[in-house]
């Protein structure tokens, strides 16, 4: 298939793998983190680790929107659907994430809540038009990638003066999450990573510039990468080169999509409708200042958090679930005693087992990490 096969070519992969092998110094470790869950999925699906030398280790970052949402936000969505009887719309994966007492939106649906799965946020507006007597709430999640589409439906709902539509905003930001991973290590004087693969789709929106401060603060190189396996191999090759040179800079491998400034029009739209929250809780990373967005006061009529009285649930994770440590790359999915036993993609306990972008789901599906298993 045009523009896909070119980026999955086995011969080109072998050449790149040889170049990586030649670049790697045998006497050192290269711990490279791919921030984005989309990258994690590609790495496992295409068997990228099989092409890497043993001392190059891929570590999996928290860049999976479904995974990082804390239990209490899921509880709030369930409350909107069950108690406030709204039509709650969200993306498919979000329906299956368990909240407190393993209650999910899917289970709420089984109890009579009106929960709809969407492929596009624009469908939520259509549902609001079709159901003028019902309140319709779009459960918005995701990093900078999915924020502009949410801004667009806020804009349209505002222009159309829709009275029965609001957004439950859970959009989070990438650079603070990278800090959330690196800052605790810096404070304790440990080194946990030699380099970072920057997310491609996020950078399409925010550009590659926001990473500059990060490389200065944490002294490691960042290469923004595309999503095809050859993109990733090329980024890994470049990252290893930068590590060897001791060069802490930002580079952009994904030049066919990402610019330094990013998508200015999208950024403008985001700043029209959203502002920074003082603080937001992330699963695994805890409370982090200025790490998420909320809807501006001026558009409070479109903000589900203003419109509905939501209980602040304690939102406790299952005690045995290791998702928080997996999200910090502190543990492997297979180190969790629930993994593959009571927690599977069909019946997930932790969020990282739900989405295909979650590290646990990738390990389970492609059985990676169990040496010699396939």
């Amino acid at each position: 298939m045009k523009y896909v096969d070119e980026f999955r070519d086995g011969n080109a992969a072998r050449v790149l793998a040889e170049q990586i092998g030649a670049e790697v110094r045998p006497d050192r470790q290269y711990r490279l983190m791919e921030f984005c869950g989309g990258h994690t999925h590609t790495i496992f699906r295409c068997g990228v680790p099989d092409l890497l030398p043993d001392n190059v280790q891929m570590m999996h970052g928290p860049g999976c929107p479904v995974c990082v949402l804390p239990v209490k936000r899921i509880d709030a969505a369930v409350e909107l659907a069950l108690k406030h009887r709204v039509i709650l719309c969200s993306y498919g994966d979000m329906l299956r994430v368990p909240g407190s007492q393993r209650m999910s939106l899917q289970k709420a649906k089984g109890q009579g809540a009106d929960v709809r799965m969407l492929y596009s946020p624009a469908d939520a507006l259509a549902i609001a038009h079709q159901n003028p007597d019902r309140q319709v709430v779009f459960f918005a999640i995701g990093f900078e990638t999915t924020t502009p589409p949410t801004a667009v439906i806020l804009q349209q709902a505002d222009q159309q003066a829709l009275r029965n539509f609001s957004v439950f905003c859970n959009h989070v930001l990438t650079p603070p999450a990278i800090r959330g991973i690196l800052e605790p290590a810096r404070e304790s004087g440990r080194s946990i990573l030699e380099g970072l693969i920057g997310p491609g789709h996020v950078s399409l929106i925010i550009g590659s510039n926001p990473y500059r401060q990060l490389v200065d603060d944490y002294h490691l190189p960042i290469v923004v990468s595309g999503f095809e396996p050859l993109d990733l191999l090329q980024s890994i090759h470049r990252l290893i080169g930068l590590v060897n040179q001791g060069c802490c800079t930002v580079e952009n491998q994904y030049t066919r999509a990402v610019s330094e400034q990013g998508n200015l029009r999208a950024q403008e739209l985001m700043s029209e409708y959203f502002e920074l929250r003082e603080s937001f809780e992330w699963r695994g990373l805890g409370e982090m200042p200025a790490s998420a967005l909320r809807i501006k006061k001026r558009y409070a009529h479109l903000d589900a958090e203003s419109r509905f009285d939501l209980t602040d649930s304690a939102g406790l994770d299952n005690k045995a679930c290791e998702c928080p440590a997996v999200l910090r790359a502190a543990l492997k999915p297979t180190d969790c005693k629930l993994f593959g036993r009571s927690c599977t993609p069909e019946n997930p306990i932790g969020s990282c087992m739900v989405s295909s972008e979650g590290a646990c789901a990738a390990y389970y599906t492609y059985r990676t990490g169990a040496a010699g298993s396939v």
Partner: protein
Amino acid sequence: MPLITPIEQGRPDQYKQTLVNFLAGDRNYMKPDLAHGVIEMAHGSGGRAMAELIDQLFLKHFDNRWLQQKQDHATLQTEAGRLAMSTDSHVVSPLFFPGGDIGSLSIYGTVNDVAMSGAQPLYLSAGFVLEEGFPLADLSRIVQSMAAAAREAGVVVVTGDTKVVEKGKADGVYINTTGIGFIPETLELSPTRICPGDKILINGPIGNHGVAILSRRENLAFESDIRSDLQPLNHLVAAMTEAVPGIHFLRDPTRGGVAASLNELAHQGGFAMSLEEAALKIDDSVRAVVELLGLDPLYIANEGKLLAFCAPEDADRLLQVMQAHPQGRNTTVIGEVQVGQAGVVSLNTRFGGKRLVDWRYSDPLPRIC
């Protein structure tokens, strides 16, 4: 190679045992709870959930040597020869889809199940469950389509049944068909004949049926020219078994796709299988859809495909015969059976890596056939 080193050395090794147990087939948590559980869509989807339900309930109570074969058909010894018998209920939604409808599907579905035994299907029964209010014009279209399909496959519908339920108690029409046919003396197709070294062939690109159905589902309407691969396979099977009577086994990878069929066989037989991604054909239009929706074509249903297992020395001849047949023009050898770890199906990616092809709990798309 180790993929990741824990930043903080965390957990005792006993937890790693979890994965080892899992890989060794400790899948007890999948067992249905027959006292308190309820039927889920997954129980009809051709994945592990369905296999468990069959084992724990149907096989347990109907226990006999025919069912224990765990095939889509039974082989019955009669004075006239070995009779193959198979039954299949069809609940596909929507009823009409690009490349077919529930009528042609109900004929070819059973014809193909009988054909996988090596038999030429002869006679079919057809049982209809009709919903009150269902348009007769639609029923007429479906029955005419069944008649045309029966002619194409060379079978006759010789008995039937019609039941009507109140409006809302069924979704339009459901059709059950049962088929019989005689297996030629010379053939011995059985999963027990599959052995390490066997080559695995498939008669063309995968995923078309599932994606064609998906393209007509209400909340996912997209424009495409993708048609179901629905077709009778008995003529192709006749050509294959005539040329290579020593063929080991045939299976049509319907619900759950190629992945479910191969996993089930690898699990039952206690061997491993290895596939070559580069040899798996997928139509460009199907690939475009699965790329966009994040689906894996290995798990998507087919209705006109068969997987053939044969000794390596027979593979070239079988490939030629299949490629020379209209229903097998795009046949490729997609992999082989290996000694390896029991029940493990792996894929050598086009990219040069290797990954597991998991046996999933359920099919991502319900009511596909």
